[in-house]
């Protein structure tokens, strides 16, 4: 795929808008886009790690160039003057040499360049270093030229970039004025340009962002101790292989159908629709899955993969116990050894699930460290995995952890969104206007959202847990209140203090009681494709009662957050609109909490 460079960046928000590009450029030569080295350093820090940082110079000295390379630091240097070959040779990072193209004779010069890459531009006007004028791309056709070192610049914009790429097949396209409005960079134009250059396919863009080290924009990665790197890399390769193996997919779908009971209905909620007085409400019924929640979709996929890798021992963490139960269930089915780590606090509030796991033959290990909740259970499961990595698979239950887990869990959960899309088209002949799902780590939400990401008309809303309220100390609203950090193997958004210590989360719902959010959600929040709202414990409890009485469906506490948010969304929607709620699980496991909190219910 052709790479994209956004050049002449001067402001923070424009660097962020360029997060899907492959390279960013800083102009150090005289220009209205000139930046100081200090400014380039500041801006560079906001870019992804794997982003190329390119410095643009015109007839600068070797010392000036090297100084900038070290200080920013730059990964490439772009030269627009009459720099001699000796200078180009001395520069340690790859060099791009720029040429103005007017005539076929100019093209000849390109082949003589000793630089690593050649950049072709239209002749400049006021300043050297790019003019924004379009040159005749056809000059590059029918001449002997190594297109793998060709960088195309000059007058590109979102409307002509596809044509330019198909005509010249360059290594990279370079844009500056083409993504500006009134002489200043424009976030929307930057993003649209990148989208156009990369073939207007979010799917491909996303694949690109997780290759090769598993990043979604700036989030993700493999931040695990070296002892786990081999297992993580093996898993990455095994999953890549399985994903493309029709037999594996067939087996996975066989179990989803025959064992889990898919597909699950998309139920029209007539009484909620009437009561809320807004859009038509549909419920995606993950509560009807065997074991009572969406977690089993992922547990089956990973358990099949573990066996494919020759691993017959499984370790898992669980919060509400739904993932633990799903894992214990699948381990019973496939005769795998199963140990589940669960926080002491969660064991207390989810005793029914603890007993279910034991009944299914799993070993449940109580975690008393920290707050005794999901975060601490993940820590212990990771430690167990480090110690038993050779024969054990870590079956992570949410879209978290080191690559490939966030991608793999999303893919296994995407059955939710794929079914929903097919079903709503059958029932209504069109896509929904909005979809709401709850997010803790984010697995049901990413599974629901992912098949709709490219459908710009569908608003996607994640409901996170506000606990006692986002302005109190007791909440789990990671996207509302969190910041960038590394936890449990990935760069994501986390709740942390000023010293980088991860804080305890609080939610009435054990499944949302986690101080992090999966890397893809963090990315989707940043780029604005998904909006995230926070729902308090009390709002969630009210929704439990409302849905139970209106629809005869007792939802899980986690799912109740999505219902409460959907009700808010419905206020500003009209009767001809469609709203889908992901009911991620049923409420049986929460009955003790309901009995306690809703005492005196009449």
């Amino acid at each position, binding site marked *: 795929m052709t790479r994209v460079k956004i050049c002449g960046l001067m402001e923070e928000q424009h660097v962020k808008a360029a997060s899907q590009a492959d390279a960013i450029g800083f102009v150090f030569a005289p220009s209205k886009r000139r930046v100081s080295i200090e400014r380039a350093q500041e801006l560079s820090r906001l870019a992804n790690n794997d982003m190329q940082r390119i410095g643009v110079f015109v007839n600068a000295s070797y010392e000036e160039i090297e100084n900038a390379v070290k200080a920013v630091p730059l990964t490439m240097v772009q030269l627009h003057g009459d720099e001699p070959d000796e200078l180009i040779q001395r520069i340690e990072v790859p060099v791009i040499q720029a040429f103005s193209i007017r005539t076929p004779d100019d093209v000849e010069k390109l082949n003589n360049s000793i630089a690593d890459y050649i950049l072709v531009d239209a002749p400049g006007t006021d300043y050297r270093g790019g003019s924004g004028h379009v040159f005749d791309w056809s000059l590059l056709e029918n001449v002997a030229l190594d297109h793998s070192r060709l960088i195309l610049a000059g007058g590109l914009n979102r409307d002509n970039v596809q044509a330019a790429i198909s005509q010249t097949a360059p290594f990279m396209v370079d844009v500056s004025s083409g993504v500006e409005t009134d002489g200043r960079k424009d976030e929307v134009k930057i993003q649209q340009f990148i989208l156009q250059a990369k073939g207007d396919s979010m799917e491909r863009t996303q694949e690109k962002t997780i290759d090769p080290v598993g990043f979604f924009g700036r989030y993700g990665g493999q931040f695990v101790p070296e*002892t786990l790197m081999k297992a993580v890399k093996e898993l990455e390769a095994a999953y890549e292989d399985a994903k493309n193996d029709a037999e594996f997919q067939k087996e996975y779908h066989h179990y989803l159908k025959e064992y889990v009971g898919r597909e699950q209905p998309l139920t029209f909620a007539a009484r909620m629709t009437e009561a809320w007085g807004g859009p038509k409400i549909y419920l995606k019924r993950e509560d009807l899955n065997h074991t009572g929640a969406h977690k089993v979709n992922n547990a089956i996929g990973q358990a099949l993969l573990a066996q494919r890798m020759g691993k017959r021992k499984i370790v898992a963490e669980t919060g509400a116990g739904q993932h633990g139960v799903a894992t214990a269930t699948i381990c019973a089915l496939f005769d795998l050894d199963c140990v589940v780590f669960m926080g002491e606090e969660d064991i207390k509030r989810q005793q029914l699930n603890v007993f279910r796991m034991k009944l299914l033959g799993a070993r449940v290990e109580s975690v008393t460290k920290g707050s005794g909740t999901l975060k601490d259970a993940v820590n212990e499961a990771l430690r167990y995995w480090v110690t038993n990595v050779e024969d054990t698979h870590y079956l992570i239950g949410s879209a978290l952890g080191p690559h490939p887990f966030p991608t793999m869990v999303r893919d296994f959960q995407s059955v939710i969104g794929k079914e929903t899309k097919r079903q709503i088209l059958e029932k209504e002949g069109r896509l929904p206007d909005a979809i709401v799902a709850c997010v803790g780590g984010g697995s049901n939400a990413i599974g629901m959202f992912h098949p709709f990401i490219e459908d710009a008309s569908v608003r996607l809303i994640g409901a996170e847990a506000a606990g006692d309220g986002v302005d109190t100390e007791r909440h789990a609203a990671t996207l509302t209140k969190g910041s960038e950090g590394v936890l449990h193997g990935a760069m994501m958004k986390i709740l*942390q203090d000023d010293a980088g210590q991860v804080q305890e989360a609080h939610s009435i719902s054990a499944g949302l009681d986690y101080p992090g959010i999966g890397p893809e959600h963090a990315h989707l929040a940043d780029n604005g494709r998904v909006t995230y709202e926070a729902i308090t414990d009390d709002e969630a409890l009210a929704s439990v009662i409302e849905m139970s009485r209106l629809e005869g469906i007792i939802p899980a506490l986690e799912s109740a957050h999505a219902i409460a948010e959907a009700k808010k969304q419905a206020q500003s929607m009209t009767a001809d609109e469609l709203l889908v709620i992901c009911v991620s699980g049923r409420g049986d496991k929460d009955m003790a909490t309901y009995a306690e909190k809703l005492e005196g219910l009449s």
Partner: protein
Amino acid sequence: MKRLAELKQAGHKAFVAYIMAGDGGIEKLGEQIQYLQERGVTAIEVGIPFSDPVADGPTIEAAGNRALAEGITLEKVLDEMQRFDFEVKVPLVIMTYLNPVIRFGAERFTQEAKKAGASGIIIPDLPFEHRQLIEPFAKQQELVLIQLVTLTTIDSRLEEILKQAEGFVYAVTVTGITGSRDELAEEVGAFTRKVRELSPVPVYAGFGISKESHVDMLRDDVDGFIVGSAIVQAFHEDRIEDLEPLIDAVTAPHSV
């Protein structure tokens, strides 16, 4: 860090002590460093407490929690180190998880660590692939970013990592987390021999080293030993003198 290479050339074994900064109060940090350097350790790893230390066993985790309860942060540790009024005679290496560094700012961290007299950095959850997050800033300050290799590191990766190794290589001698153990696996000797053959810098064995029998077993296959949990616990229980025989067993001249 050059000192470590010289030590190796002279045929001596290194003893690297790990301490948890601020366990027992921040004022203990200077005392512990002074004590250890007087006792002849080769280098000291200054551990920074973290809320979620997944590479650590119960001893170091508990020490970290005590330090966190004292209000210890990365910043406080670096400040304290900058205020030391005694001569630091051995290389100091900051050992921290990645998140406190990200929060503090990678560049600022390397600048302050340099000012604090550190020679190197170890970040157990920063794999080789992602070292770009820290390494460019570390290089600017001439701090070495020490890499870990483990029993599960495959050969091609081992070669890649060792090619770029600086300071010393941290050879993890257990498949697991930190903490004292009775026995080390038989395969450890072959592993450390392999690492040592490929490594341009000294190779130190760490994780699980707590006894003279461990030292005897690996003496010929490594350039030194890193002892963490045993030291942390001894300082905590105020019986550090119990560790002196172990330090001596490593550092005493030995017929090689």
